[in-house]
């Protein structure tokens, strides 16, 4: 058969076919489980809670010291004075549960996971996804990782994929050498908070030259109301290695807010390549204030693929420090803000070495009074010659209630560079809508098609199942949205 078959079946259409099946009408992850915990800290944060977390985890002294120091920094550091201060100042740090331990320990067999939690992740499709296409999975429920697996062949090649707590227990030396070297506790208030109370997250170490061809995945779930989830992820790619890590996030719908404040550190050693994909779909009462930063050494490549659909307020600016010659960084992100949502997302690239290159593509959609902001920084240090960087931001506004901001900053301290920034803000074109409707699509369908097309540069970078899920989510968001 000719190429027609390939392109109609294996490319975009099949994604859309899947995406259009079984569309619901609600936030489908909004269900909640009955609470059944081994330990739940009281509300609010004290030195005692920090110490207790560390003791329960039987951590080495240096980690406890690190936590306590971070706690002091957190208490002293003021809230950020930029961004959406109104929403930020609504956070009541004393009303949050900082540590909730759901089950005894991370299981390797799915059958051993407690039934209630297993049911939750079954409903979220986690083990199914693993069977289909993943090389390893971590599932975190509240503060602890409840399930974890990795393919045997990878384990044999020496790839370490553990939850962060186990990582610390089993590979203390590697952790100690790299932990908090990319994001120190004093970086910002939320990084300090995470450093004090972190629990769970992923620890990945890929030995020199090993290429993990299929993605490793983590899934983060908040269940309890007013829960604070503070996972900590550290990925170290030794020279010449490759790893693709994917995380997904959901939470139930509650009337009062929860806080998700992760710290993610990536270290790509010379010639290594890390791709980090996030699909964040928190419910609309979650503050998602995350610090993500990567260091790329010579010839290394780091990519953040970042999808922000849910949450009440997201503030997230994945950063890449290009510290070695010819390192390359990319941030590809989308944001979708609906009613009462503010997606304040962006990217930060620091060019600290010659011949480094970077690219940022940001696509955002605001709808129904939602607000999206792109906040970005491109910084070029002196002597970082032959730097090339291009930034492209496109925003689509779906109605007159919504808002879009673009706050890019370029700081250039070196002459031999080429820095480009471009941004557009527009609405869905009347001519496009008419064209599609003249082909029989309803206004909703036509708008969804245009929106999916708008996000396509992002979607095509996702593994198939994620692309399908994303299209489905967008379809959901678009239903009944245009009148």
């Amino acid at each position, binding site marked *: 058969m000719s190429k027609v078959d390939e392109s109609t079946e294996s490319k975009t259409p099949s994604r859309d076919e899947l995406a259009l099946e079984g569309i619901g009408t609600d936030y489908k992850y909004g269900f909640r489980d009955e609470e059944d915990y081994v330990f739940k800290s009281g509300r609010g944060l004290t030195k005692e809670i920090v110490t207790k977390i560390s003791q329960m985890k039987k951590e080495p002294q240096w980690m406890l010291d690190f936590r306590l120091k971070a706690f002091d920094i957190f208490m002293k550091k003021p809230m950020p004075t930029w961004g959406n201060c109104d929403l930020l100042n609504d956070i009541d740090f004393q009303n949050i549960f900082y540590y909730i331990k759901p089950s005894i320990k991370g299981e390797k067999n799915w059958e051993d996971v407690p039934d209630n939690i297993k049911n939750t992740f079954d409903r979220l499709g986690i083990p199914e996804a693993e069977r289909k296409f993943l090389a390893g999975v971590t599932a975190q429920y509240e503060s602890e990782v409840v399930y974890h697996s990795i393919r045997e062949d990878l384990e044999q090649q020496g790839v370490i994929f553990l939850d962060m707590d186990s990582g610390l227990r089993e590979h203390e030396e590697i952790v100690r050498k790299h932990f908090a070297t990319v994001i120190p506790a004093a970086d910002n208030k939320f990084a300090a908070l995470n450093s004090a109370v972190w629990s769970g997250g992923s620890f990945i170490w890929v030995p020199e030259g090993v290429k993990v061809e299929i993605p490793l995945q983590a899934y983060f779930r908040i269940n309890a109301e007013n829960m604070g989830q503070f996972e900590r992820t550290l990925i170290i790619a030794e020279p010449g290695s490759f790893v693709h890590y994917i995380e997904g996030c959901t939470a139930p719908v509650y009337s009062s807010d929860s806080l998700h404040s992760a710290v993610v550190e990536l270290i790509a050693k010379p010639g290594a390549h890390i791709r980090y994909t996030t699909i964040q779909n928190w419910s609309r009462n979650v503050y998602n204030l995350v610090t993500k930063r990567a260091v790329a050494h010579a010839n290394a490549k780091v990519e953040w693929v970042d999808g922000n659909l849910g949450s009440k307020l997201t503030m997230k600016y994945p950063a890449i420090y290009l510290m070695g010659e010819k390192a390359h960084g990319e941030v590809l992100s989308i944001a979708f803000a609906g009613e009462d949502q503010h997606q304040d997302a962006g990217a930060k690239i620091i060019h600290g070495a010659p011949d480094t290159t970077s690219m940022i593509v940001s696509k955002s959609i605001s709808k129904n009074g939602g607000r999206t902001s792109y906040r970005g920084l491109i910084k070029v240090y002196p002597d970082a010659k032959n730097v090339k960087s291009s930034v492209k931001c496109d925003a689509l506004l779906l109605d007159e209630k919504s808002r879009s901001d673009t706050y890019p900053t370029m700081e250039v301290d070196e002459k031999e560079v080429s820095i480009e920034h471009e*941004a557009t803000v527009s609405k869905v074109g009347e001519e496009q809508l008419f064209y599609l409707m003249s082909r029989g699509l309803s206004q909703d369908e036509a708008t969804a098609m245009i929106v999916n097309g708008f996000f396509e540069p992002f979607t095509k970078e996702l593994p198939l199942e994620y692309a399908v899920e994303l299209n489905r989510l967008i379809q959901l968001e678009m239903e009944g949205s245009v009148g």
Partner: protein
Amino acid sequence: MSEQAKGPQVSTLAKDQVGGLFATQEPQWLKERRLSAWESYLQAPMPTVKNEDWRSTTVNKLDLGKLYPVKALTKQEAKIQSAKLEASLEKIGEAAAVYMEDYATSTFHIAASKEIAEKKITVLPLAQALAAETTAKDLEKLAALIDAKRGVVQDKFTLMNTALSASGLYVHIPKNTTVTAPVVMALNLPAGAADKAVESSENLAVFPKVIVHVEANSTLKFVSLTTASEASSETAALVNAVVEFHVEAGARVEVAEVTNLTPGTFFVNRVRAYLGRDAQIDFTTAGLGGGQVKSDLETVLEDRGAQAAVKGIVLGAGKEHYAYNTIADHKAPDTTSNIVFRVALKDSSTSIYQGNVVVDKVAQRTDAYQSNKNLLLSRAAKADSIPKLEILADDVKCSHGATVSPVDRDQLFYLMSRGLTRSQSEELIVTGFFQQVLDLIPISGVKDLLAELAASRIEDKM
């Protein structure tokens, strides 16, 4: 400059002295405004680099204790003394009126063509305008109008100007009137010794205030030159200007302002243009010299169909620092703004360009474009660019672009292969870089003047 022309130092100025700096015939409303601004000024913090708006422009080097605000100039001179200015005016060509304040000689000069009187146009030193009944009334009305508007930045510098301004110009064009030749305002300052930097400057602080009122369906060309004369023992440490354009329905204003100061001067310039229905402004600014230049150019598109075109060229040299901030404030539907800003930096000069396009909820069908290109000509030069968009309406066409790069190698190679030296080639490329902006300037004399000023700076030991 004689001691009488100076007031007490800014930092030691007492409240009861603020009013006393000025002519006794000032209207009561203005006296009150000065006093209340002075009180707010004392409370207001000095902006720091942490202030988003003042990012990378340091003001802590400015010692208020060493500044003496100038008093109104009273001595009129029939001829322009500065040869440099004379030459600039010649380039601009025929003028409808010329007003000049010369702080090197403590004199002012004013001359108007027949056209001005025939068409009932007013071009008056601000102090005189405040002393005359009709003009003072118009100024009071305009001041009240601005008070009613939200969003005017009332920071330490604006307040300082309101309280202490003793110089400036008032221009009024009645409706349905076309002024063919430009009205030219020139501010000549003592240059000081060439090696003086901002922090070591003493003496003068000048607070010009320029108010231009163009009534419905009229047109005006306005040129403003801020320069330093050739040699003088004194330095104007601070020029803190506030400039207002009130452009009523259907009126059109073409403005060109040229900043050509010496390294000892800190120039703070606040320009706001209020545009009525279908009103237009075509604004060009040129930063071609000054220790630190901090200039905010805001166009407020207040009514349907208003259009603003803002163009800028900056050529930095030595240790100069330029901070230009363009704001296009779309407050009404069907408004258009087009901003083109080009910066070239030599030596260890630095620039920060901030551009903000704000589109109000009601400003549907806004068409806004913003472009900032930076050319780095030296390794020690530094360019920052922050082009922002804040869009609250959905039916809009807004875009911006910004680039930072060195001189294009292929262009350089091409020119050198034709026998030009490297520096000749670079000069040619920079000239071309600016020419694309200069081509858009509607006032032809200004085009020539800027081309010449830019050329001499480009050639200057590149």
